[in-house]
């Protein structure tokens, strides 16, 4: 073991990479037009070094978390152990070559977890928070919006909306579904209830075909919504371009992308106004920053997606949000998920939020300490639901 205080970047060497699966039954099932989730998983990646510094990352692994763990420990770990922790881009390239084929899917989600952990180590060794390490614009707090008003009865939707407004949120996301008429009514109902002071946006989770999306887009235009998120399946890029020509509400998407090459076509053509990568899916901080920079170069805003992820994904996103010049607003999920509330000393954004803002942690690295006993309690073989 070397002394962390004395260590130069090259002295800190990776000694182990451990993947921890977590599974929980959600306090409230999340209902989207993609499907109803009552039980979800995630994976924490722990990277240990010879300097006593341990980094933590998160891999978006909603289902089959042990498949992700096997991939990380069998295919990624051997490419990392014994190497200097600071050479993050080199590790990224080496991990990407663990499997052939285009970049995407579980491999990139697995890399995301390792990459975030390496950045955590990077910050801890330097004694600086990640937002500072990223050399960005230096926000000390970031704007957040409430996610989300779930699809339910009108009365249920009204109650949820009121709760978010009462909690001080200045922007609220509304989930809509494949029923175009019902969704259009919901769009109007919640605008009337929210008044003009609260910004509203919708998330369709790929609910529509082009005709349906155009019709919903008209309702959004009429009711002044700030964005229309994932109206179509992410592979239907021609569909997004056709929709944009016939919809005034800005289009948002990006949580389904793994790498910059997948985000690029709708950015280059200025089809999207808002890019929403999830750092635990889109290759970690390294690749997410790359695609957000690409978006910035094309005048497209950055709004981090964190839905159903845990505190590590949320906190890594807060640091990116603090650093990136084109940051617009970040998702603040109020689901009470155990992945956000029980596994670290840092309280989730939904609790830290004041006046629609969340503070950026100032301790080195991500700025949180994981309670590994709490993580173990969520292991699918043990306490995890």
């Amino acid at each position, binding site marked *: 073991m070397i002394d962390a205080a004395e260590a130069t970047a090259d002295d800190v060497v990776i000694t182990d990479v451990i993947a921890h699966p977590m599974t929980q039954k959600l306090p409230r099932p999340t209902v989207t037009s993609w499907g109803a989730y009552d039980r979800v998983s995630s994976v924490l990646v722990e990277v240990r070094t010879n300097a006593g510094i341990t980094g933590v990352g998160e891999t978006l692994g*909603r289902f*089959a978390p042990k498949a992700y763990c096997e991939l990380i420990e069998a*295919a990624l770990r051997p490419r990392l152990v014994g190497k200097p922790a600071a050479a993050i881009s080199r590790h990224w390239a080496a991990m990407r070559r663990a*499997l052939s*084929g285009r970049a*995407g899917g579980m491999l990139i989600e697995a890399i995301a977890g390792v990459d975030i952990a390496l950045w955590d180590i990077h910050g801890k060794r330097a004694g600086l928070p990640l937002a500072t390490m990223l050399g960005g614009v230096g926000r000390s707090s970031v704007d957040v919006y409430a996610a989300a008003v779930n699809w339910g009865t009108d009365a249920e939707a009204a109650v949820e909306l009121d709760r978010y407004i009462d909690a001080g949120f200045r922007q609220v996301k509304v989930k809509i579904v494949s029923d175009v008429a019902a969704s259009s009514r919901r769009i109007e109902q919640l605008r009337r209830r929210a008044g003009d002071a609260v910004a509203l946006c919708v998330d369709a989770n790929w609910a529509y075909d082009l005709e349906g999306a155009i019709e919903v887009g008209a309702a959004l235009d009429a009711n002044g919504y700030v964005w229309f998120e994932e109206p179509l399946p992410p*592979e239907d890029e021609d569909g997004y371009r056709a929709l944009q020509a016939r919809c005034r509400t800005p289009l948002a998407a990006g949580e389904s992308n793994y790498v910059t090459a997948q985000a690029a076509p709708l950015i280059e053509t200025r089809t999207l106004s808002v890019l929403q990568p999830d750092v635990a899916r889109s290759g970690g901080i390294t690749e997410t920053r790359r695609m957000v920079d690409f978006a910035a170069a094309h005048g497209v805003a950055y709004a981090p997606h964190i839905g159903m992820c845990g505190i590590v994904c949320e906190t890594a996103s807060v640091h990116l949000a603090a650093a990136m010049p084109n940051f617009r607003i970040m998702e603040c999920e109020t689901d009470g998920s155990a992945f956000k509330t029980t596994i670290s000393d840092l309280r989730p954004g939904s609790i830290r939020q004041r006046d629609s803002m969340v503070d950026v942690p100032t301790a080195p690295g991500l700025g949180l300490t994981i309670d590994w006993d709490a993580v173990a309690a969520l292991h699918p073989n043990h306490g995890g639901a």
Partner: protein
Amino acid sequence: MNALHLEEPASHGVPADCTSRADRIVSVKAYPVIQKLPQPTETSWGRYDRISMVMVEVATEDGFSGAGEVLARFAPHAYCELIDVALAPRLVGQDPSDISGLWASMRRALSGRACGILVEAISGIDIALWDIRGKAAGLPVQALLGAEVSDAVPVYAASVNWADDGAAREQVKAFREAGFDRIKTKIGRSPRAAATRAALVREAAGDDVTLYADANWAYALDEAVYVGDALQEAGYAWFEEPLDADDEAGYEALAKRLRIPLAAGESNFTSIQSQRLVRSGAIGVLQPNVTRAGGISETFLAARHARDHGVAYAAHVGMSGIVCETAALHVAAAIGGGAQVECAMTPNSFKSKIASLDPGYVRAAKGRLAAPSVPGLGLDIDWDAVRRMGEA
């Protein structure tokens, strides 16, 4: 009339009696299969000494058994866990003939764009479902896909390795003696060395042989222009994967500067990922691997879309197993025209040790290889051998 054999031999997993009601899937099993390669394969991507794949066995209530293969070169247990936990529950109890419905359901096992390990895993199940559908119908898969004749499919020998010049000459000679008039050579990182090798292989093969060159993402754009000119000069028929597969703008830029057709596709997941380069005309040859691209369903779709745009289908097989090779032959037979299949000549126990059917590198004659004409894929898997190879 073609010469399809439509009888249903019991040895092909076909029950003696089945009724017209819908059948149901009763089990989905995934097996890791691992081997140390007899001769390591060197490409500019990397060196492969030990590789794996996953075999999938789907069984139905009526007693049909379908075999599928998943491209899983490394970490095969991760693929098996995904299939066991996330895909099998969506299949058991369902009608195996509803392949597109089951595909859509499996695709929703994980969110995000359709790509990566999930699509490779779905590929194996899709192939097994086509095997079952063929057995249930008493038809070979090529007939289900609309093949009119069961003429043997053209195949090419792959590959002359990126090794020393003497070994390259020997391989060309061996492929010629085995009756191949189409040969692929690997070319490596140094553009100058690649150009020299391309000329050497041409000289060794003579002018009557059709030659292809595979770069496995070796080059930057300007290097690829240099190598492409050299290949053109040496009369090669395609330049395969010169650039990173995700650099689609690079392929389009390269195609504008070269006369030699570009080939790509083995890195694609789903037919959607092949659309851009097919529609833009940047590639002349599309090469999906059926065990990666989403199975027979997506590969057939991609190959037809390519055909409609004047782009040829040349199935990638590479280090994959006998199920991959056989499924690709069925798709190529159904596409017809200039469709061809890669005949990987490297000894490979994934092709030689797990099925009743001999591998293409044994069966191929005069540069052609027939898709089996018995129901389903037309091969019997030795599942005991598969299980034994999981312990390697």
